């Protein structure tokens, strides 16, 4: 019995264990960077850096460090560096754990001139369901934190929950998917028509959908000319315009061409799907590819191998035998016999407990270019005081720190919103203490080693 105990003890204090742990930490981290380069930071975070392997390696490291120090008892003067450095590592790891457990690291997106009090957390996701009887008042019926990246649901192992005895299943998860808007034919009389067309001449080639999904005619405006799709009514256009009205025959449509320079209506007739119609404007030819009498827009999620800056994650929801996709930070309506369920899947949002107004946002550019040189937000707190948050100059308030992270701009390059990163880190000073101890210890260790080396000569 004693022999086994001694064996375990000598393994735990061995440099062999230290080297193995150090090398496995290095290996796990290296895998993490490869995963990040292949996929993205969130995936690497979930699957590698916060994986059980990482925790085990860190745990073993602490055990090893403690035993190695205990083994050197009673410590002598020359051990100071060694002890400080090793205690420092333990403190640093504990500090990181505190940060991970009770810290907060999120983003706030402010539209210029608006108030905000919600922080969105990029690594926590919640699944929430609301029920409604009348469509006006909603009641939260289900809420749970889910982590589909770490625990992806499948047909064999779905994520299941119930609302009013109705079963909802999540049967699949796409970590990276592209949201695509598609137009599909519908049976319902109330849905408007949709048209897929091409306008083409030597210089331009436009292929577009227009969907008439409101009471007013739908328009596609390409500057010098418009294409208008209507069920029947429309106001006579003043510029160049081509008006399309569905025909009883599905293969045909009515069209009217207006030309501004020729004082209005220039051409009228019945066109056929797939055949070209000369508009008379700069050699532009019109061609209808598809025309649905009744149509609806549908959102599809195309599964991708790897993420792109536009991809989002999406979950497959099975309800009453029907499968539908639910994208991250969006919602899905499910219809019951007498009520409706709104299902949302999104990043957790946290109320910081006070409101902030983004009163002003400015971007400084390098002279004569569109390159951003600096940017800053001016925010007004609840007491009316205005504060400036800029790169490297954060704002501290009620235990939170607000950093200028980035901004959003429109197509013209004008900023529309400011992105702040919001942070609360109770482990910060523990980590600083740990790193200071390590650094001090390392220097002392090398200092004593030099002295030893000198005395041995």
């Amino acid at each position, binding site marked *: 019995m004693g022999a086994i105990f001694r064996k375990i003890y000598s393994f735990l204090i061995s440099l062999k264990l230290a080297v193995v742990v150090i090398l496995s930490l290095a290996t796990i*981290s290296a895998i993490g960077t490869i995963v990040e380069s292949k996929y993205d930071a969130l995936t690497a975070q979930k699957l590698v850096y916060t994986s059980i392997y990482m925790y085990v390696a860190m745990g073993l490291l602490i055990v090893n460090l403690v035993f190695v120090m205990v083994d050197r008892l009673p410590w002598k003067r020359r051990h100071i560096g060694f002890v400080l450095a090793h205690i420092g590592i333990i403190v640093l790891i504990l500090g990181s754990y505190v940060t991970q457990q009770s810290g907060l690291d999120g983003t706030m997106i402010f539209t210029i001139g608006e108030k905000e009090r919600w922080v969105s957390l990029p690594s926590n996701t919640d699944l929430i369901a609301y029920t409604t009887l009348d469509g006006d008042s909603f009641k939260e019926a289900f809420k749970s934190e889910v982590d589909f990246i770490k625990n992806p649901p499948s047909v064999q192992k779905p994520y299941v929950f119930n609302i009013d005895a109705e079963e909802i299943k999540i049967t699949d998860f796409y970590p990276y998917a592209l949201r695509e808007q598609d137009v599909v034919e519908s049976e319902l009389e109330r849905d408007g028509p949709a048209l897929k067309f091409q306008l083409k001449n030597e210089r331009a080639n436009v292929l577009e959908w227009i969907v008439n999904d409101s009471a007013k005619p739908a328009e596609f405006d390409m500057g010098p000319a418009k294409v208008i799709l209507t069920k029947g009514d429309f106001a006579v256009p003043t510029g160049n315009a081509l008006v399309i009205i569905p025909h009883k025959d599905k293969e045909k449509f009515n069209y009217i061409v207006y030309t501004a320079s020729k004082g209005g209506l220039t051409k009228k007739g019945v066109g056929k799907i797939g055949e070209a119609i000369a508009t008379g404007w700069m050699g532009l030819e019109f061609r209808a590819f598809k025309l649905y009498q009744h149509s609806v827009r549908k959102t599809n999620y195309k599964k991708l191998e790897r993420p792109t800056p536009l991809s989002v994650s999406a979950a497959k929801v099975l309800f009453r035998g029907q499968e539908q996709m639910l994208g991250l930070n969006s919602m899905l309506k499910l219809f019951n016999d007498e009520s409706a369920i709104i299902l949302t899947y999104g990043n957790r949002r946290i109320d910081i407990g006070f409101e902030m107004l983004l009163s002003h946002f400015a971007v400084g550019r390098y002279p004569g270019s569109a390159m951003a040189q*600096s940017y800053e937000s001016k925010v007004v707190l609840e007491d009316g005081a205005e504060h400036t948050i800029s790169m490297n100059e954060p704002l501290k308030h009620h235990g939170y720190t607000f950093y200028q992270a980035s901004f959003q701009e429109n197509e013209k390059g004008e900023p529309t919103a400011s992105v702040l990163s919001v942070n609360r880190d109770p482990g910060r000073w523990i980590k600083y203490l740990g790193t200071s101890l390590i650094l001090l210890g390392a220097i002392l260790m090398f200092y004593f080693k030099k002295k030893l080396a000198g005395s041995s000569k």
Partner: protein
Amino acid sequence: MKWIAKSKSVLLLVVIVSLGLGSVVSAKGIDDILGKIPVQDGGRYKPFDTFARESLQLVYGRRDYKEKSATEIVMTWLLLPDHWDGLEFVRIDRKDLKEAMGLPVERSHFSPKEILSSERGPLLMQDLDGKRKAQEKLNPYWQAVQTLESQISLYKSIVAGMAMKLYPKAEGTDWYTLRDTPPEARAKFDDITKAFVQAIDKNETSALEQSVSEFIAMARAANPATYPSESVIGKELTLNHFHPFMWAWICYLVATLLFFTFILSQKDFASNVGLVAMIAGFLLHTYGFYLRITITGRPPVSNMYESVVWVSWGAVMFSFILERIQKKKYFLFASGLIAVVCLIMADIAPTVLDPSLQPLQPVLRSNMWLMIHVMTITLSYSAFFLAFVLGDIGLFYYLKGEEPNKKTIHTLAQAIYRAMQVGVVLLFAGTVLGGVWADYSWGRFWGWDPKETWAFIALMGYLAVLHGRLSGWLQNFGFTVTAVISFSLVIMAWYGVNFVLGAGLHSYGFGAGGVEYVAAFVGVHIAFAIAVITVRNSRKKHA
């Protein structure tokens, strides 16, 4: 005796430095006169000389064209666009791109006319646009398409007078493009072009000199606040023409050869002259840094080129310090090798290591912590680089014969140990400083960003080696081998993250190219280490 040697050294130093400087002072040609006109481009003010060199580098692939300076070439683009449209000078490297464009594969340069008349060009550009809209990561082929697009659009917009901004607006910081320049200033610029033609024709530059000074005076008067000072422009011209880093590597090369001679022959003369050449190289190296710092107003460690130059500087600096402890010239020889290799690499590969001076991203601006963090980390690379080269030398001695060189091998192992200690302390301190900086500007001490993760991995690697040495597993031989192999981790952290992984927050230093050479470098060293291990084992068996 020692004093005489020292004063001799100083004399030699003066001669070497002034030899180099001489080439700047002499010969004031068309290039020098045109080159000093300030241009607003890429978010900063630069001399026309730099603008022309960068433009020619992008379009033609070199900074001069058939012995003619870039300034003259770009001026003739403006004057004779029809002539240039038909000349084959736009460089395309990728064979598959030439094929896709329907261009003859055997040529390396093509005329703008051929490229623009290629029927498949517009479709290719449309596809590129689609990829950019979808924000897809571009693979090397599409990056090449993008380069071609910027080559043509730069050439075309220079010709159309839209790329060059020479004349400040009275208000604000924006300048007029050549095309929009007010008539009276435009007339002054036309004087320059006339005098330029005259200067080429009659080899008489006084009219050119006068018209350029008049134009500069007029432009300065238009908005004195935004117009760059003569001294800043002058410094950049010195950097372009004198090229201190080139003279530095020449000095280092001489020094390295002399130290090599010393190590083989133990002749004091070689060591003394080598030291002089080394100091001269270091002074020139430092002078080049000084120029870059004063031009950009920031420490020069923000891209791969600058870090390569900085790391080699650090290695030389450490070798001077460490040489005081162990006066065997191994440190100086090793750092000389590093400096020569790094500086030559920085000179010959401008497409991978871009030497142009770029403005900084907002997050990197005016932050003391950041600069200290980056400089500390890269200095640790210098120390590890030293350990690596010393390891190489050690392996070489093992190959030569272990018994007769026992003392040398032990000295080298001690030298490696010193270099590694310095490296580990600096790498740890630098990584922590990075954490402090990230905490200060993002509120995140550690975020597992690939660059910081690889710094961490390299740190773990060297810690494992030092612990191995401590426990006695790694004797001199194992220690020498690991000094060589562990440097692969530094190469990954330094180069690989930016050029191979290509992900993460530290993306402001990103680039592409050279992967095969770096991989070959790492591969050859690992193979060398394995070869020495095998040879040593078989010798032991036979002994």
